């Protein structure tokens, strides 16, 4: 401010020398340094994701959930939900937690893991069966990354080919992508989330960027999502898409049981049919063979006893 003033004064002096009246100096309305500091467009995307599960999940699923929480700085936690609660309750939980997206892991029969991904108040939502889970703790995953650095999201071109895939892609982008300038995030890029479609399933991988020329190391976790349904609402509503190739693990287990049961049944049947197929006489006999076979009177039974006797 002071500097400015001086400059103005000096001009005044000069003007005074010339003695020409030019005192109407147009000054800018606000001095640039007085301007309020330029606001950086920081953290405009306030997306939060609620990551939680139902009761009774397996340890592996729990580890997977924790890995996702570690990798997503914009995630929020919630205690496990009782199974008897209806799913639409989750919408209210999300509202309470200020979350716009939700990843809900639902365990069934202590062995099957389902994952819901949902855009919370208004939908859509998708339900998947989670298969082939490998967590970040496995020693074969050699990569590492900053906790909370923003991931690049890599998608298979298949995601743009069918409407249900593209809808799921948008859901994944908004859920797994960390908002820019998130306070818990790091400003560097050192890992990639990969979503690929093979065998009508979505395969998730997480790689560390070792060098920017494209050498990678896997960090984990890995899992496969087998889509079941896509709903218009959040955790319910009309079904928009139903996977025709999906077969529930219950069904598959039943088939296995049946196959084993069939083994016994077929064995018994085979025995029975063998009995039936066995001929009464193994080879053709000449009926005249036993013409001269006679029964001794001592060996006769029944009425024949009366007809034959030994002369003595």
């Amino acid at each position, binding site marked *: 401010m002071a500097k400015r003033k001086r400059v103005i004064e000096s001009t005044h002096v000069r003007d005074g020398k010339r003695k020409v009246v030019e005192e109407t100096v147009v000054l800018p309305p606000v001095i640039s340094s007085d301007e309020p500091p330029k606001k950086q467009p920081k953290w405009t995307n306030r997306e939060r994701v609620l990551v939680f599960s139902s009761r009774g999940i397996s340890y592996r699923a729990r580890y997977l959930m924790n890995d996702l929480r570690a990798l997503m700085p914009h995630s929020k936690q919630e205690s496990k939900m009782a199974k008897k609660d209806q799913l639409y309750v989750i919408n209210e939980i999300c509202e309470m937690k200020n979350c716009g997206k939700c990843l809900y892991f639902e365990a069934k029969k202590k062995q099957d893991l389902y994952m819901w991904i949902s855009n919370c108040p208004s939908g859509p939502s998708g339900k998947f069966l989670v298969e082939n889970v490998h967590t970040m703790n496995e*020693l074969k*995953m050699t990569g590492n990354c900053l906790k909370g650095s923003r991931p690049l*999201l890599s*998608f298979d071109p298949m995601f743009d080919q069918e409407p249900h895939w593209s809808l799921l892609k948008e*859901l994944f*982008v908004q859920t797994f992508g960390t908002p820019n300038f998130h306070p818990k995030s790091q400003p560097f890029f050192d890992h990639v989330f*990969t979503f690929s479609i093979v065998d009508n399933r979505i395969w998730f991988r997480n790689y560390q*960027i070792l060098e920017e020329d494209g050498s990678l190391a896997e960090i984990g976790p890995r899992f496969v999502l087998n889509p079941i349904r896509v709903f218009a609402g959040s955790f319910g509503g009309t079904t928009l898409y139903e996977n025709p190739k999906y077969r529930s693990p219950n069904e598959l287990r039943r088939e296995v049981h049946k196959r084993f049961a069939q083994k016994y049944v077929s064995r018994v049947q085979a025995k029975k049919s063998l009995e039936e197929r066995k001929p009464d006489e193994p080879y053709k006999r000449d009926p005249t063979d036993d013409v001269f076979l006679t029964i001794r009177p001592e060996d006769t039974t029944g009425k024949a006893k009366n007809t034959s006797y030994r002369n003595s």
Partner: protein
Amino acid sequence: MEWLCKLRVSRSGGNSLPDVSMLTRPLWILYIITSLAFLLLSSKDVHYSCSMMELTDELQLAFAEGRLSDGLNVQLVAPKTFTNHVEGLKAKLAELKNGLGWLERLDLTNEPAPAQPGTDMVGDEDIHDDFKRELTFYRQAQATVLQGIQQLQKLGVKTKRPEDYFAQMAKSDDHMKMVRQKLLEKQVSMEMSEKAKKMRELRKYGKKVQHEVLQKRQKEKREMMDAVKKYRKGQKDKLDFLDDKGPPNKKQKTGQKQEFHVNKKREFKNQKFGFGGQKKRSKMNTAKSSADMSDFNPSVHQTKHSYKSGGKKSNAKKKGPAKRPGKSKRQNMKSRKR
């Protein structure tokens, strides 16, 4: 009646009626044998439940319209239809999109990066081939990284973490230590197995070489003996085969000596039992050594002369060579020949 699809099956058992009244309405997998007319006519004898009466009405109607015919009618279950509401999906997608810039989203859609030359990545994709499948995912991520980093740098965003920037990592240091240890272990075990494999191969090769050497030596010996035999019989008058084969033989022998010099077994035994041992009393006679006749050679030590002079005369007469016959006998033999 739309549910009632018609399926004609061969008539079983003429006009015998199964107990239709056993079937309940929801079960509806109907077996109606014989024509409807028969059903209606014979209703005197058979008592139907209320629902059955409704059914018969329905069937009657169907029959009148000509949608039923004689034979076995079975309800078919329509194949399950799977919803795929494309319009709804598209509408929902449009609703879901929030119009944020790429820097917020960081999503990229990529084909897998081209495979490295020399890798066998061509051919149909087999999902059960783990290695191939994982490599496609890896290449997809690679393509994304190459494109994404470039795009970020264009936007003027720092991508690479400086060396002196420390922050909490996703995996703890302890965990990474374990990973490193595991990697090392794996490497060591791989090296060991490779070494063992190499040794095994070497041993095999060594055996082969030894066998060959033995056979060669035997062959040379045979040839030498043949040559000597020929020389003896007078077929050859030069002894040059000795000169020819001499030097290489000698050379070989020296070579073999060098080879035999390192006798691993011997060395090991020496190491185990000690080399040499006590020499004291080793040259003394014992009962065994004095009874040993192994170095007694009758052709050397038992000459004819000593035999004749030392042996008994009677024995010598019997075992001696055949004597010349007397003069008269010899003359007789001569005359006989003539």
